[in-house]
């Protein structure tokens, strides 16, 4: 996975916490599957489990792989179920002006790329994609670029991603594989560690 080209969903709300991404009542599972149906559940469905038509999220293409969300996305609980729900729904990239730290780590561990852009850039993206629901965004992980090139907009921004995490995403390596491969270093470290 080095390039993602997709339409986008805009969720113009700041501080979207992981309780909203996946409410606690769905955390009773002992596996990682099926959380996509529960994504943003309390915003998406009423008390009778009927979809709320006024929830803006549902007005975009279901196939979109990119979510553009307000500042401080993923704050609150450490529940990785939030990342599982987003990935299971089919979203591969989340764009915001800031991510909560734990969510960011969880996203990367599930192949979701969190892209931090400036507030001005986020505003421009939101404004454009709220209107243009069929225009694609191109995200190139190798080049670390986010490009929108349409008739009335041109955005080409470089984004940061930790080099090690980038390598993991591009090669499909998992952090646990890497850690287990380095077990000799860990055991050696323990010999002199007093705590």
């Amino acid at each position, binding site marked *: 996975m080095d390039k993602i080209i997709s339409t986008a969903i805009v969720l113009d709300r700041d501080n979207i916490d992981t309780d909203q991404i996946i409410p606690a009542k769905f955390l009773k599972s002992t596996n990682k599957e099926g959380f996509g149906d529960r994504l943003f559940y309390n915003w998406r469905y009423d008390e009778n489990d009927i979809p709320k038509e006024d929830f803006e999220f549902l007005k975009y293409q279901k196939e979109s792989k990119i979510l553009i969300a307000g500042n*401080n996305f993923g704050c609150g609980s450490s529940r990785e179920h939030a990342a599982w729900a987003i990935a299971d729904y089919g979203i591969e990239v989340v764009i915001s002006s800031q991510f909560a730290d734990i969510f960011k780590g969880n996203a990367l561990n599930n192949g979701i790329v969190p892209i931090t852009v400036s507030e001005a850039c986020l505003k421009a993206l939101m404004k454009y994609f709220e209107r243009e629901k069929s225009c694609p965004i191109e995200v190139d992980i190798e080049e670390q670029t986010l490009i929108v090139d349409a008739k009335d907009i041109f955005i080409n921004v470089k984004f940061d991603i930790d080099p090690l995490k980038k390598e993991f995403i591009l090669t499909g390596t998992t952090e*646990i594989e890497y850690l287990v491969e380095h077990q000799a270093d860990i055991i050696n470290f323990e010999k002199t560690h007093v705590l």
Partner: protein
Amino acid sequence: MGETIIDKIWDVHVVKSITDQVDMLYIDRHFIHEVTSPQAFSGLKEKGLSVLRPERVTAVADHNVPTQNQHLPIENELSKKQVDTLLSNCTDHSIELFGIGHEKNGIVHVIGPENGLTQPGMTIVCGDSHTSTHGAFGAIAFGIGTSQVEQVLASQCLLLSRPKTMKVEVNGKLSTGVGAKDVVLYIISKLGTEGATGHFVEYAGDVFRSFSMEERMTVCNMSIEMGARGGLVGIDETTINYVKERATISDEKLAFWKTLNSDQDAKFDQTITFRAEDIHPMVTTGTSPDTGVDIAETVASSTRNSEKGLEYMGLKNEQPMIGTKIDYVFIGSCTNSRIEDLRAVAGIVEGHKKPEGVTVWIVPGSNKVKDQAVDEGLDKIFIDAGFEFREPGCSACLAMNDDKIPSGALCISTSNRNFEGRQGDGARTVLASPITAAASAINGKITDPRTYLN
């Protein structure tokens, strides 16, 4: 240039620097619970991996447990399955488990410190964002996701970027009726929920120095609510005395702990200073923990509310917080469920009775806290006041068990999050200190606790 306690602890845990940014960091203590660990154990099984250091792992059932009739089997099938899965995973991997009914059972962030497992200088993780609580001991403690739980089980390490550092100083003397919860709600209201993102925070200054360990835990607990990766307080006699009462400590460790505090000239990436005298009893007004205001003010004195948030809360900008009618009171959670909290509550409610139509749950943080409360006769004060005194667990803080606040009801709560639906679908939450919750409980509306002091 001097070093911060955060850098010093970090440095002694680096197994290997992988890149300029990422270190392989050794984890001393790993707490696990039933909700965020099952998928980690399944992951190990799929990969054919074992638990590297089971003696560094402690398990507890807390998030999903009932707070009544804990001697009976759990009725909710899914909750029961999670708790049973924890038991079988712990048995398979020789991990110590404080299950339901165990004398050491309770909320993970209460039982770790209480049983001497949380110690200064350590790196401590748990699949729970309120792991920052353990920072009260001068430890680097933080919440992790389930993939990381699996990583720590398999390798006792994590791949982490070095944090930025922030010093939050509060100097001066707190006024009567203002406690640790008010201090942290005040700091969050000033910094915002993302104000400390990417940082570990050291809480410094007169106020934290004078705090007990339990008060320090309340403050560190809510570090995540300002976006911080964790928060800690430097190690002093208060810390060492608390730990010594609960664990045997070698001279080598004691000597080492003393070297860890921030140097006088330590350089932090950011320093923010507040005056204790500016802090009043605090209550939140919206659906984000940074919407706290001085209890005597109106909703509008928080500038952090969104229209959607206030609509959800059923509150109006011009409305004063004092006098707002409440339906439920929840005194519990890893923020405020320890013995000092329960004593403070009892001090307010003794001789009073709650009005009809208000439901009050007191959920102690652990069996030890519960037993201590009973020994001191606090349970009788609560029951005489018309409160329910429950068995330990996370309870209505996140409402995974049956302790749910009904839709539309307003709950004044000593917990840590007022997010939409946090305490039950449609539930409305006002965060406050134990004494503010207690005063409000016996008055049926949001009440300044100072009315009941002196």
